[in-house]
């Protein structure tokens, strides 16, 4: 056995060290609450990133957290690749921005955020059914909707061309500062307007390609007919009268669209508007914002408004973005705290203003910020963008199918492919049979 001799000096040193160690939790260093890394969507509106950066640093300073922000572009699906890689490696950022379908695709890898959502709903009001559909799995919230990147892809019409060619006064239908008077704005009215605009050499710029903008419009029009390809229980419903009606309608509409519409991507409608050719496009205000810079005369004539109503209601495409916390994050409590902070009305307002009104909060009390009423020219052009009077149902193409099936329907652009097949002369029943076979393929688990 070994014995240890303690000198008076040893006792003093040990006591001092133990005292310091015990006192440590009360010492608040520069980064006492640890580290947090986040991958945010790289905003395409200049200044959009700066606002979120300032907010995060403000929170980090107050809470003594060392933060790292990466802005990840959605160009070339870089953000999707990053999400897939981090999920596979179970390593990466603590918080990541997830586009529309991604929270559901990675539900098992995400930390539930029921507590954060409960606080935010209490403060900001309820969220719409599309947010619930996309961010809830197994009765738990798996991600928090963020205004950054969220958008409604409703019509952006040319005031002058719609009035002159189709006899429709979009400003009277959707007056700034007041509720819509759009009862006459139906799918039939849009079809007539499309014909008039086409004959006036200013077709409506609605694409029939395989990218999101095209699919979103098709999704909303299908929903306006009640044409669900797959129902909420996962049953295939493609051979229904509602789907047939939607396809017949689209075939009539397609003859008045640009002949190259089947090749359109997400940029095509923006270019069509800025060129001065389009009488209407279906896009969030980013196209108008670019027009303000590149074609101010066109921008002055743009008016963002609601979708036309169909037999089963007025549906508008809504694409929310989410912030999620990986369940392998090492600082979940700090991550949740930051999400709460970014969801505060003051934070949301700052980000919406930085994006010139492009970003859209999902909470009902935050759809009447003053920026949308004030943005212009023309003043009030964005007033109806956030659906302030709830006169349309915000939805996403392929809903109400179970999200994992709907994701496939959406990504594979089944609805626009059906339209293009049918409009190119394929028999309706053949198109439906093709779609049914594709949908059967999406049922695998």
């Amino acid at each position, binding site marked *: 056995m070994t014995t240890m001799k303690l000198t008076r000096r040893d006792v003093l040193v040990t006591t001092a060290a133990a005292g310091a160690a015990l006192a440590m939790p009360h010492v608040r260093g520069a980064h006492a609450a640890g580290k947090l890394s986040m991958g945010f969507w790289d905003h395409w509106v200049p200044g959009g990133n700066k606002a979120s950066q300032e907010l995060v640093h403000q929170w980090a300073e107050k809470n003594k957290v060392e933060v790292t922000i990466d802005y990840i572009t959605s160009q070339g699906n870089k953000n999707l690749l990053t999400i*897939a890689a981090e999920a596979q490696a179970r390593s990466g950022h603590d918080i990541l921005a997830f586009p529309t379908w*991604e929270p559901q695709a990675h539900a098992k890898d995400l930390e539930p955020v029921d507590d954060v959502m409960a606080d935010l709903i209490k403060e900001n009001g309820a969220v719409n059914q599309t947010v619930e559909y996309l961010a809830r799995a197994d009765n738990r919230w798996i991600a928090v909707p963020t205004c950054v990147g969220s958008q409604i892809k409703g019509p952006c019409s040319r005031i002058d061309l719609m009035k002159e060619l189709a006899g429709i006064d979009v400003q009277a239908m959707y007056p700034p500062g007041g509720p819509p008077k759009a009862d006459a704005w139906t799918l039939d009215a849009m079809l007539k307007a499309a014909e008039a605009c086409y004959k006036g050499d200013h077709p409506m710029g609605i694409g029939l390609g395989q990218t999101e903008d095209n699919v979103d419009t098709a999704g909303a029009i299908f929903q306006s007919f009640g044409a669900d390809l797959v129902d909420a229980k996962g049953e295939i419903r493609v051979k229904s009268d509602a789907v047939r009606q939607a396809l017949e309608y689209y075939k009539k509409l397609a003859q008045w669209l*640009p002949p190259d519409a*089947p090749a359109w991507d997400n940029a*095509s409608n923006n*270019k069509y508007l800025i060129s001065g050719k389009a009488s209407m496009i279906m896009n969030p205000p980013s196209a108008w914002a670019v027009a303000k810079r590149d074609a101010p005369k066109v921008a002055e004539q743009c008016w963002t408004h609601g979708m036309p109503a169909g037999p089963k209601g007025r549906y508008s495409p809504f694409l929310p973005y989410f912030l999620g916390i990986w369940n392998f994050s090492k600082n979940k409590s700090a991550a949740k705290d930051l999400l709460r902070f970014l969801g505060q009305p003051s934070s949301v307002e700052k980000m919406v203003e930085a994006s010139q009104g492009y970003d859209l909060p999902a909470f009902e009390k935050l759809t009447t910020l003053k920026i949308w009423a004030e943005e212009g020219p023309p003043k009030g052009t964005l007033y109806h963008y956030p659906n302030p009077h709830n006169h349309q149902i915000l939805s996403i193409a392929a809903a109400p199918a179970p999200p*994992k099936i709907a994701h496939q329907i959406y990504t594979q652009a089944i609805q626009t492919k059906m339209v293009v097949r049918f409009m190119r002369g394929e028999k309706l029943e053949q198109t439906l049979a093709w779609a049914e076979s594709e949908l059967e393929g999406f049922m*695998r688990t």
Partner: protein
Amino acid sequence: MVDAALERPAAAGAVRKPSALRRRLQRKSTIAFLMTLPLILLIAALVIYPALYSLHLATLNKSMERFVGLSNFAFLFKRQTFWMVVKQSCIFAITAVIFKALIGFVVAHFVHNIPTKGQRKWRGMLLVPWVIPPAMSTLAWLWLFDPSYSAFNWLLAKFGVEAIPWTAEAGWARFSVILVNVWIGSPFFMIMYLAALKSVPEQLYEAAAIDGANWWQRIWYVTLPMMRNIIAITALFSLIVTFANFDIVRILTAGGPIDQTHVFATWAFWIGIQGGDIPLGAAVSLFMVPILSIAAIFILRDINRRGNEA
């Protein structure tokens, strides 16, 4: 030689022999192995591991939670779109390689016949399409083929010709992606064929001329047999690269209209990354392996046989 161990004088007697490890380390083959080891490790990390990992992924179910064996492949075989992609990949790769080889062969002859002094400039200029990163040059082509603002259509309109739906109609869209691939890839064939042409002994042509061979006979009986191996190897390499092409289709048509220009790589990306079905995407991308392996076996066997005959 490093392999030869030097013997010490017998008088040294007590001097120790080099250890087995030391002898092994001094062998030429060991040194060669050690020198290539970094590259082997790099290939293992960046090629072999991902390849095995994608094999593993292809055997999982959609949610990547359980092993399903070859079910993903069996599922693909039942899909109409999959067979369309197989057909399109074959049309794309085979047509593009044939045209690249033909154009490369013709241009190589032209360049070969240019006097040596000016040849370098032509060689440099002709290599430009191959040197520019394809993602960038394809963007330029996209502007030329743009659905609404095609520069080609603008030119055609000047001559009263109706606009061509370059990327909106299946036939034109396929033509467009093949054309861009041929434009990018032909210089590679040209430079390989040019090198082969330069190595054909001049005496053979002289002998053929004495025998009264015309231009066509010289090509058929002298040039082509002498270039056969290079033609085969170049075609094989290009076939592999063209089959695996991603950027041209992705940028120019994104697989549209209605999936009619998708090739394996773009469809695998669409399903795996964009559609969130990584196992099925991995299965699609792996489908290329047997096709290319069969092509490689046939071509390399042929080259080997000719080598042995020689």
